[in-house]
């Protein structure tokens, strides 16, 4: 294993073109999908947490179910829908980065909604009582609520990004792990390991772990900053 790790480090240091391509595809897929999920998930999560309306409980149960959906199931669903014989075949999205992003948005938006809903449901009642007591309008109340949410938005984002980058089932299924086009870090690790070639897998694994470490360091630093 030691020599494999050394080769992997050499591979990283030599800026291997395939490795770079995999990294840039990964960045494109994960950044886009996590940002889209954030844009969709934060307002929905805040509304679900702050407002009480009929059907809210049903939506929460539905969301929790989606959080638990195995990525391969999501991948299979989109593979069927966008396949050459599927209903959305004319879009030609199968085995493209676009569909990988879509599948990941479906996978991680519920996580963001869940995190936001839990936080807001905890915070909103007390904040609302105070804000209404002061005679503030609805707009100002929501502005203050958003301000409270800053850290949880941030940590929800990192959580969803981490899930996106570590996810393999869905992107392998809808992306096809096509070299130079839709191969991301996790699918490449899987592909190369199946092939019996561990170097690139280890190199990518090291990068993933390092990224995860950085994300967590940023998270714990920002927690102190933002929760003030």
């Amino acid at each position, binding site marked *: *294993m*030691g*020599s*494999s*790790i*050394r*080769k992997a*480090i*050499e591979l990283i240091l030599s800026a291997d073109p395939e490795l770079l391509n995999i990294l840039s595809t990964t960045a494109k897929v994960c950044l886009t999908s996590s940002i889209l999920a954030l844009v969709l998930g934060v307002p929905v999560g805040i509304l679900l947490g702050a407002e009480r309306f009929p059907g809210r409980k049903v939506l929460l149960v539905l969301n929790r179910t989606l959080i638990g959906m195995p990525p391969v199931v999501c991948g299979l669903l989109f593979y*069927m829908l966008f*396949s*050459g*014989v*599927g*209903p959305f*075949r*004319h879009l*030609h999205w*199968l*085995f493209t980065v676009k569909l990988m992003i879509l599948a990941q948005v479906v996978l991680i938006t519920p996580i963001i909604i869940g995190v936001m809903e839990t936080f807001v449901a905890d915070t909103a009642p007390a904040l609302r009582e105070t804000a209404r007591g002061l005679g503030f309008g609805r707009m100002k109340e929501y502005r203050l609520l958003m301000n409270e949410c800053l850290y949880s938005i941030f940590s929800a984002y990192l959580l969803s990004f981490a899930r996106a980058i570590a996810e393999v089932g869905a992107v392998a299924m809808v992306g*096809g*792990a*096509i*070299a130079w*086009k839709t191969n991301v870090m996790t699918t490449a690790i899987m592909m*190369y*390991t*199946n*092939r*019996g*070639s*561990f*170097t*690139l897998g280890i190199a990518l694994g*090291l990068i993933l*772990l*390092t990224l*995860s*470490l950085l994300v*967590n*360091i940023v*998270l*714990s630093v920002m*927690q102190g900053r933002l929760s003030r």
Partner: protein
Amino acid sequence: MKKIVSLLLAMIMIFALAACGQSAAPAPAATEAPAAVEEPAAESAPVEEAAPAEEPAPETDALVVDTCILKEADDAMINNYSLLAVNPDAPFVDADGNAVADVELNTVGAAALINWLLSEEGQNLAANYGFEEYGEYLFYLKDGRPVSTAEIPEATEETKHIRLSTTTSVNDSGLLGYLLPIFEEKYGYEVEVYSAGTGKSIANAKMGNADLILVHSKKQEEAFIADGFSYVIDGMETERLNWMYNYFVLCGPSADPAGVKDAADVKAAFKAIADGKFTFISRGDGSGTHTKELSLWPEELGITAEAESFKDYTDWYVSANTGMGACLVMAEEMGAYILTDKATFLTFVANDGVMG
């Protein structure tokens, strides 16, 4: 939060320690120095330097591969590769079994790629592939193979993307990575290679997700044609364009406890392995290699792709359900017998059993 961070730190440190510990042992010099020039092939960059014309020399290094070819060039072991263009008017059905008439395929691109692979240029490149790196030819051209002299059109915006569904063993041999860039450069196409076991790769084409397939399982190819999924492209005579082949080889530990080297033929060799209950690694993934292996066991054992069929043989028959390279690593570690295509095996040996 702090706990997670420290856990991650610990993991990275363990990784680093493992790396240092291992690399410190063989080379007492600097741990980082990538230029271990004096060292045997074992430590050098995987591909470029392993070339010296002779077979990987039997170094007395601990890393040398023990698994070796025990049986090859048997007629039962020929591994035929065929190209099949996917028929745009095939009886495609959706998940509910309803007919789908308007599946869009890039027939022009598929024909262009086929014509190029079967042209003199494409055939020569394929035939010579691997000699420089491994000192052996990996693929052979078939006698009476289809040859194309058709003009190959430049790519247009509509025909640019070609989707090729192929098997892992073709992809892993590096042949496509060698051929396709030349084709793409010359005519402006972009070939997207989807690689999976033959079964999955054909299923992918049946769902309208490939313009052509390159596989090596005659039975499955014929079924594909019989179902109407392939068609004869202009200038060819048949759907199944079988133009090159290589050999499956039966490999195993150099000591050869089952004595397969002395067996009369491959079937006898497989019988010897089964009789002696020597560990055998099966791909177990519905790939062409797996299909071939299943056809070589004595019939009375009744081994098929179904898990049920080998449940009594689990003490020696290992169904790995993974790629060729990973199976070879496993066989090397377990001192097991294994059926593999020669190309992958040579790559494996050239890289000292690490596969890159």
